[in-house]
């Protein structure tokens, strides 16, 4: 009936091959011999894997709270403004900008001898109170993570602002107004009314932010290539590079590990999405 053609395709291109990968993660390619958890052990003892896990976690720990905090603050400010729609559109613009275009401008801005360093040097020369500024090689030092986080924020802030605004608009207006009449200040109405009312949104937006971290590989790869500075070597690089080197045994194991982790995130999130 209605669902059949679509579901056949999903089976063919997503489900069936995924289970094939699960099977392959327990065998040796070539002779198809069952090797138990050997492939998994190779992954867990791989130094690149450990590095990538550490980096991905750090990226998440920095990127997710920053994204949630900035976008929540902006949406609280935006609420009820006359220019709200225009401003939200402007913040959403990065969604329309192909990654390749963004990367082109980034190359000019953040090179060691690029525009950003140039401006910072000028500023520190003008204002003598500031210490002298030494040019930073953003992509080849630990600053690389900052670049990645900034591009993540740039790309996703508008998206999250819309989600927050949708959550905010679902709150009953009357309660807040009543509280204001009763003399509650801004902080009190945030603490007692808005924040508890948004607890669902906090959860949903948090999970979506985590998933966006994993979807932000495209920009990172374009800026820094397949073997970037070691602070921004993420799990996606590892998968991509093993793919290019035809290391399919390990790749199968890593695919299974990563999808199990993400599956947990999704299932948590889903409970909420499905309630709708």
């Amino acid at each position, binding site marked *: 009936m209605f669902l059949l053609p679509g579901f056949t395709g999903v089976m063919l*291109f997503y489900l069936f091959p995924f289970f094939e990968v699960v099977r392959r993660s327990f065998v040796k390619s070539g002779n198809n011999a069952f090797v138990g958890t050997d492939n998994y052990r190779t992954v867990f003892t791989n130094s690149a894997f450990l590095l990538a896990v550490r980096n991905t976690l750090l990226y998440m720990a920095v990127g997710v709270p920053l994204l949630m905090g900035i976008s929540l603050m902006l949406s609280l400010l935006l609420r009820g403004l006359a220019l709200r729609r225009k*401003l939200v559109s402007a*913040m959403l*613009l990065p*969604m329309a900008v192909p990654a390749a275009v963004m990367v082109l401008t980034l190359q000019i801005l953040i090179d060691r001898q690029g525009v950003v360093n140039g401006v910072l040097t000028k500023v520190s020369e003008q204002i003598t109170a500031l210490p002298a500024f030494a*040019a930073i090689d953003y992509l080849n030092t630990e600053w690389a993570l900052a670049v990645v986080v900034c591009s993540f924020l740039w790309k996703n802030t508008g*998206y999250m602002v819309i989600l927050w605004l949708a959550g905010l608009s679902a709150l009953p207006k009357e309660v807040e107004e009543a509280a204001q009449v009763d003399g509650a200040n801004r902080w009190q109405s945030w603490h007692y009314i808005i924040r508890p009312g948004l607890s669902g949104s906090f959860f949903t937006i948090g999970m979506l932010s985590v998933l966006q971290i994993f979807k932000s590989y*495209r920009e990172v790869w374009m800026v820094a290539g397949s073997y970037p500075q070691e602070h921004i070597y993420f799990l996606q690089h590892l998968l991509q590079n093993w*793919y290019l080197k035809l290391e399919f045994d390990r790749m199968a194991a890593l695919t299974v590990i990563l999808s199990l982790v993400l599956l947990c995130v999704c299932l948590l999130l889903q409970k909420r999405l499905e309630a709708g």
Partner: protein
Amino acid sequence: MRKKKRAWFATAICAAAAALICAPLLMIPGGSLMDSAEMRRILAPILGEGSGFAVWHLIPLYPTIGHFYRLLIESPAFYRLFWNTVGMTAAILLGQLVVGLPSAWAFATFRFRGRDFLFGLYVVLMLLPFQVMLLPQYIVLQKLQMYNHPAAVVLPAIFSTFPVFIMYRGFTQIDGEILEAARLDGAGEWQIFLQIGLPLGKMGIQAAIVLSFLEYWNLVEQPMAFLEEQAMWPLSLYLPQIDISQAGFAFAVAVMVLIPALFVFALGQDALEEGIAYIGVKQ
């Protein structure tokens, strides 16, 4: 009075944030019209031909349409890549509608056994990053002998579950009583779908189209993994290959990539915002 002041203040902060977000894009039009010599001079430090720092001219001193001339008149390869992108995006969008619309309709209106489980599966699939599906899709594409063929990018994308979810959300906005009334009047299920569902679920459909367009116009990982021949690549993968020493030319390509995306963005803005809100809010 105090309230007004506060609104001004909030507007100023948000406007500053919005301006910061949009600022890098201001480099693009100027860059595409900048004479090569000027570009070479201001970017010399980046190109390794000088000390100090690169600067940027938002408005070029010696504007030229030379890069566009070279791109549009002298580079036949550009058209092939451009039409690759257009063709892939169009095929994917069309396929997603043909396959996805009935699926979304089924999830929104029918209660069948296993519906909740299946729907959950669709949601999980839409949230997973591409890298997780890289090996699985490679295996199936090899089996179907589609590797290194545009279909390797197009077919999996057609069955992406994301547009199904968005369109589903659009359909759930429809009042169930209308459908019930139509059924009582003897309308068939297909008739209801085509004559009531499609017009009333328009917002969700538009949102899915806009979101998909922006995603597939910008394809990078899939063609990189599944298409070996450059002749099949989309523009979004060709652009990063242009060396920074040819920045003016690269900016001209960037303009051509950006125009259709901005066009769709401007046209479909309401739908886009609606669609994003669908993702997060429970109803």
